[in-house]
Every structure is written in C-alpha cells, then in structure tokens.
C-alpha cells in the first residue's frame, strides 16, 4: 500500500515514516507543505494519505482542505487526518461527502503504535475512525437520536471510533453476536438502506454526528 504523508515537523514526519514503514506501508511521498502535498496527491498510484491539518504556508487548515479536495477528485480516497486538536466541525466536513475511508485522530494516538497502524489499515479499507475525543463530545450532548437505547448508543460510539464488532464486543463485555444484533437495530432505527456492512456503518456514524 502506497501512502502520501504530509507533516511539517521533521521530528514527527520521521517518526511517522518509521512507524508506517515498519508495518508494511510504502511511503510514496513525505511532504512538508501544502503545495508539494497537492503535487503528491495528483499521483494516481497512491492508495491513501496521512495528513497533518496544519501545514505551511499559512499554518491553518491546509491539510483538511487538501483532504476534502482530493476526495472530491477521487471519491472515497482514504485519508487519515492527524491534528494537535480535534473539532467536531472538522469531522463533519471530512465526512460530509457521505463516503467512508476517513480517519480523524489526535496526534497523541500515534503513541499507541499498534492501535494507530490498525486505524490506518481500517481507513485504507474504507472504514471510518474518529478520535475518542470527538466521540465523547458527541456523547456528552443530548443527540436527536433518542430512539436508540443507551446500549445502542454505546455501540454506535465505538463504531464511530472505528472498532470492529469483535472489538466492540470486547470493550462492552458482551458476545459478538449480541453486538451484531445491536448494530442491526441501529441500522433499522436510523432507516439506513440495505448496503454493505462497512458502508452502513459509515452512514450510521454520519447520522449520529448530525451531518
């Protein structure tokens, strides 16, 4: 799998390259500013991107804009967005196209190497991984999805973090079969059309985020 990596701080860029290469990813390009990122993303042979939100020249939200831009060119192109802080408003923008293949994590999470690499894999496979901090901010609010039972909300929150049914079962101390039942209930209650499980999971998270 060929990745584009954009991160302006050399220390973190080198660290990310080391971690990703050690886990079998190929770094097609590692860039440090928005212009070279645009060039690198134009390469049709890259499979996914790992981007920092803040990049030169303006150090605001270049990475986020690049992610939205590349996904309007190549719908569903997997992008993992990393940032020093997470905002729900940005998660909504990333997911607004209604397609999966989006990760949005605090840079802190890279420290848990195994979990981080797994998240990149999941995003590359079309899944959605949101930072637990975004998820807990949504959980803290009274969301319109009141039709869901507390347990179903828990399952949905873990789904938003990109966990598989097996992982959710492990976190909630229930069987995988029970989780499958919950997810099916969630899909039905949210009126999601029949589709591949992955895609329905993305749609459920979108509905939950209020996109």
């Amino acid at each position, binding site marked *: 799998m060929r990745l584009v990596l954009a991160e302006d701080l050399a220390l973190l860029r080198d660290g990310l390259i080391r971690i990703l290469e050690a886990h079998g990813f190929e770094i097609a390009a590692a860039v440090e500013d928005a212009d070279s990122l645009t060039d690198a993303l134009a390469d049709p042979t890259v499979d996914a991107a790992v981007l920092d939100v*803040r990049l030169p020249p303006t150090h605001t939200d270049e990475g986020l804009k690049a992610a939205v831009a590349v996904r309007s060119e190549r719908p569903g192109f997997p992008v993992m967005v990393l940032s*020093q*802080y997470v905002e729900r*408003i*940005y998660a909504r923008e990333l997911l607004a196209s209604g397609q999966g293949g989006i990760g949005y994590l605090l*840079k*802190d999470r890279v420290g848990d190497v195994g979990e981080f690499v797994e998240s990149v894999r999941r995003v590359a496979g079309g899944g959605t991984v949101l930072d637990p901090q975004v998820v807990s901010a949504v959980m803290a609010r009274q969301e319109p999805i009141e039709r869901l039972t507390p347990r179903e909300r828990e399952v949905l929150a873990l789904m938003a973090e990109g966990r598989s049914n097996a992982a959710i079962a492990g976190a909630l101390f229930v069987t995988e079969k029970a989780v499958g039942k919950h997810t099916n209930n969630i899909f039905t209650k949210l009126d999601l059309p029949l589709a591949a499980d992955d895609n329905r999971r993305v749609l459920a998270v979108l509905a939950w985020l209020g996109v």
Partner: protein
Amino acid sequence: MTGYAGLQLLLAVPALVLFVLQVAGLALAAVVVGIPILMVTVPAARWLAGRHRRMAAGVLGSPVPAPYRPTEGASAMQRLRIQASDPMSWRDLAWLLAALPLAVVTSLVVLVLFVLVVTGVAWWFGVGPIMVARSRIDRWFLTFGTTERLEQRVVVLTETRNQTLDHAATELRRIERDLHDGAQARLAGLGMTLGMAEDLVERDPEGARKMLSEARQTTGAALGDLRAVVHGIHPPVLADRGLVSAVRALSLDLAVPVEVTGQVPERLPPPVESAAYFAVAECLANVAKHAVANHAWVEFTVSEGVLTVVVGDDGRGGANPSDGTGMRGVARRLAAFDGTMTVSSPRGGPTLVTLEVPCDSSSPRTLPSSGTV
C-alpha cells in the same frame, strides 16, 4: 428654520420648569424627597437637550454628540450618582436656565420677522445667521469642545489601559500556573518514569515495559493539558477559520442547541476577533450554566465599522452582569477596543447580551466611548 424657532420658543417653557424642578430636586435631595424628583427631571431634561442638539445639528450641518457617561446596567440610584458626577448634567442645567432668554430673543425676532409681511426680505436673509448663532450657543452648552473631549478621552484611555494591563497580567499568571501544575509537572514525572524503566530494563524487562506504557499515558495527559492551555490562549479553530466558524465549533460542544447566524465579511483584526470570541464563549458558558434554556442563538453583524454580536437564550432571565467575575472580565477586555456590553435580562427571560466592538482600524476614535453606546 422658522419652524425650529417656533418649536424652540414653545420648548423654552418646559425648559424653565425643568430647571426650577431640578434645582428644587437638588436642594431637597438631602431630605430624600428630591431624589424621585431628580429621577424624573434629569431624563426629561436630557430629552429636551437632545431635541435641541438635533436641531442645532440640523442647522449647523454637523453632528452635535451627546457625551453623557454610560449608565447601562446600573440600578436607579447608581444611575443618579453617575449622572450627578457627569459634567454634562451640569452643563444641561446651565443650558436650561439660558434656554428661555435665548429662545425668547432669537425665536421671537425670527417669528416677528416672519409674521410681518413688510419685513419679508429681512426674514429671508436674516433667519439663517440668527439661527446659526442660536445653534452655536446651544452647541457650546450641550456638547464638549475639542479640548474637553480629548481630556475626557485621555481619562477613558488611561482607565481602559490600566484594565487591559491588569487583565493581561492576570492571564499570564494563569497560564504560568496552568503550565507549571500541568504539562511541566507531567513532563518531570515522565522523565522519572523513563529513568526507572531504563534502570529496570536489564533486571526486570516486564516491569520496564509497564513503566514505558505508563510513560506513554503520561505524554497523552501532558498533551491534553497543553491543548487546554493553548485553547485558553487562542483557540486553534479561531486561528484557522475566524470568528463565526470558531463560535460554530464551540456551540457544537454545548449541551444547549445554539443557532449561529450572520456573517463577518472578512477576517477581523486578530485582537478584536479574539476578544469577541472569548466574550461569546463566556456568554454561552453562562447560558449553559445558569439560564435553564432550551435554545440559544448568536447573531453576528458588521456595519459601519462596528461588529455587533447578540447572544440570546430563552431561559429564565434575571442575569445580572455585575454578579459574575466572568462578565466583568468580558466588559473590561472589550473596553480596550472601545467595545461595550449591554445585558437585557428580565425575570422570566429572554436574556439578550449585546456586544459591540469597533473593528475598523481606520475609524477615528476621538469621540468618547459613550458615543458608541
């Protein structure tokens, strides 16, 4: 202008009455009876003076500002105290005394010239200069000259500068404390944990691994602390996207649904943006904490170089801005930009907080701050 002259002649009578009543009120204030008299006559006199300011402005073709000290948010007694210490109140009083003879002389001359057909030519040419002279005298009484205005401006600026410096010093102390107790302490702990892991790695690899995992958790906590500090200094979304988006991002995380409307045409000057953001954040935090509201809204408008933000909620009302240190801090921070905050919060709601900040750096700021109230 003849109409003005007639009106001024009519208004001269209440002016004299108000003068007498105000002097009586002042004399009787010592025995309390005068206070209610003043509570009625001072606003009435201000209204009357306001009419004459507008007429003078019309005749002279230039604005005649009413440079009263702001009394928003003050109780009735406080308002009276502010009005008593306001030099403009005393000039109003002097003007009330002068208004009758002035009006009788100028207005009568004008009216007599107008009524007698024979003197029509004199009326045609004479009214202008007479009314200009009258308006100049009114203006002399009813507004401050340039020097006085600048003196007052210096007083206001000195006060707001002191407040700003105080505010900045307090903020720096808070940041220092947050860093010291938070990230700094955690990094020190991290160093120790790593040292212990290094020490253990040969003898007890399993223990060392535990230490390393603990160290990683500590870095996460330290980063969390730093994020909180950074957010308190300058929220990243504000830097990235500007005021409206930052408020929108903030409102997403609140327990009360908040509707954010309006646009700010371009990026505002960063200090204004930041002060306005923290002001709105404080207002919304109060809504979430105290208002028991089902719904809140934030509305942005910029017109004629003034940013206006209205934060409203349908909660229980009864908010008093002088109660909380937070709101006082907001008012102080806005004052540094000649900004103002007004709170309307009747019992039973709704609560409306209106923030106004001049945001056009080219606009002249020689009017006293009360001019923008």
